[in-house]
């Protein structure tokens, strides 16, 4: 089940990579919505820092969105 999930995610990545040169994207004047702070890739860095710290200390996984190093002795 998890292997299948991994393959699906890999496939999505590959498809996106292959198609990124053609029809995807916007013109500079079409960035009205994308320019909102809420659409930033990391729009809530404080919350993210708090969550990363909690989950790092309570679970065996870390990283993904950003670096995995916890910088604390909580795990």
């Amino acid at each position, binding site marked *: 089940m*998890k292997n299948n999930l991994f393959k699906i995610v890999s496939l999505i990545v590959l498809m996106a990579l292959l198609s990124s040169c053609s029809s*995807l994207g916007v013109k500079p004047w079409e960035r009205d919505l994308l320019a909102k702070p809420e659409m930033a890739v990391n729009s809530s860095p404080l919350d993210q820092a*708090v969550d990363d710290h909690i989950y790092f200390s*309570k679970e065996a996984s870390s990283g993904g969105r950003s670096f995995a190093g916890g910088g604390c002795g909580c*795990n």
Partner: protein
Amino acid sequence: MQLKNHLKMSVKEHDSSYKIALASAALLGATMPRAQAEVLGWDASASFLGYSEQNRVSAGEFIGTASKKYHQTALFDIKVVADVLTGASANGAVAQKFVQTFTSPSGKDFYTSNANQTPLDKTFQDLRGALSLNWSDAITDVSNYRIGGNVSLEHDYSALSINGEYSHDFFQKNTTFSLGVSVGTNQVKPEGGLPIAFSSMFIDGINRGEDGNLPQGFRDTRNGNSDNVTDAEILLGYTQIINRRMLVQFNYGHSESNGYLTDPYKILSVLDNNGVAQDYLYENRPDSRTKDSFYVMTKYHLEQSIVDFSYRYMTDSWNIKSSTFDVHWHFLTGNNSFWEPHIRYYTQSAADFFTPYLDQSVHTPEFASADYRLGNLDTFTVGLKYGFTLNQQHRAEIRLEYYKQQSKNQSLIDSRVATSHSSGLSGLNLFPDVSAVVLQFSYYF
């Protein structure tokens, strides 16, 4: 010259004055020296967090950030974190039908656990301070770099790391590739010294006080005062704008940690054929760990809301595999406020060397830990955030989250230990659920 001096003073007095001065200068056709045009003021935020587990750990945390722009593209930011933890933490031993006594990590005190209760180390408390500095700037119109450093200090753990990232935009900035590297060094200095792997906990049930001398039996379980861990990590990122409303991000991360990765405060119960504890041994983990993570995130702007969905798959050299699903739904309202529900689901498989306890009749393995965080685990988070803007500049946010952990180790108990159905364990809940509440208040100046 007078105009230049006037502009310099305006910058120091107020940001808006600076903007007016800039406009005036433009109208007058004056040329501003670059150094004077670079100062644009500070942005700051403060966040207070309360974290409370039912009958276990409580934590309070403060995070302060400040950032300052230089000329058009550079940003310096600083983050300060201070937190305090107290309460009780599972020590790794299993519940029994009788009261159990343990020695505290310092060796100077003892604590007990009630019959039928998961043993918790009640002496657990810690203070932490951390500082993070970052500098980012553009190299060209389509490339950027960021460098940073972090330091974190606790009485028994210190960490130092530096990191750097390069990113490059393609196709009218619709596509961004990034490469990040981080290296770090950590010092582990456990209370009471470093326990010898699989040494037997010395227990005499005596409180010696802070100034008391450590008994020889406790000293015999120790080997040195500190050890180190080194970390190295690489993070590859690819961000793609799909259309006016949607973007996706893919990250691949690989990290390697080497050194003392054992938890010096965790032990394992050694059970006889009847499931009754005969001994407690300090755990032992491998001294290296590599992790690989695959992360995909998408944001979609609906008419009045923004959906943020992410999935992470992680696998490591300890044979832990995990999946994380995370959804934030940001609802924009008309009066400068928003609501944001949050749901997260996480599931992991157990590390190779995880075992709920050790059998007395079986030879002790090379590595073993009963830390439930390395076992089969599902966790759930539900939360809600509300934010609003004050004076069209300052923003306040309040967030409430509920977090629940469910250990699913019955199959492991059946497969990894021989005495799983012995009378001494019947009716005991060896891995009870853990739940926590998080309350956070943030203010952006």
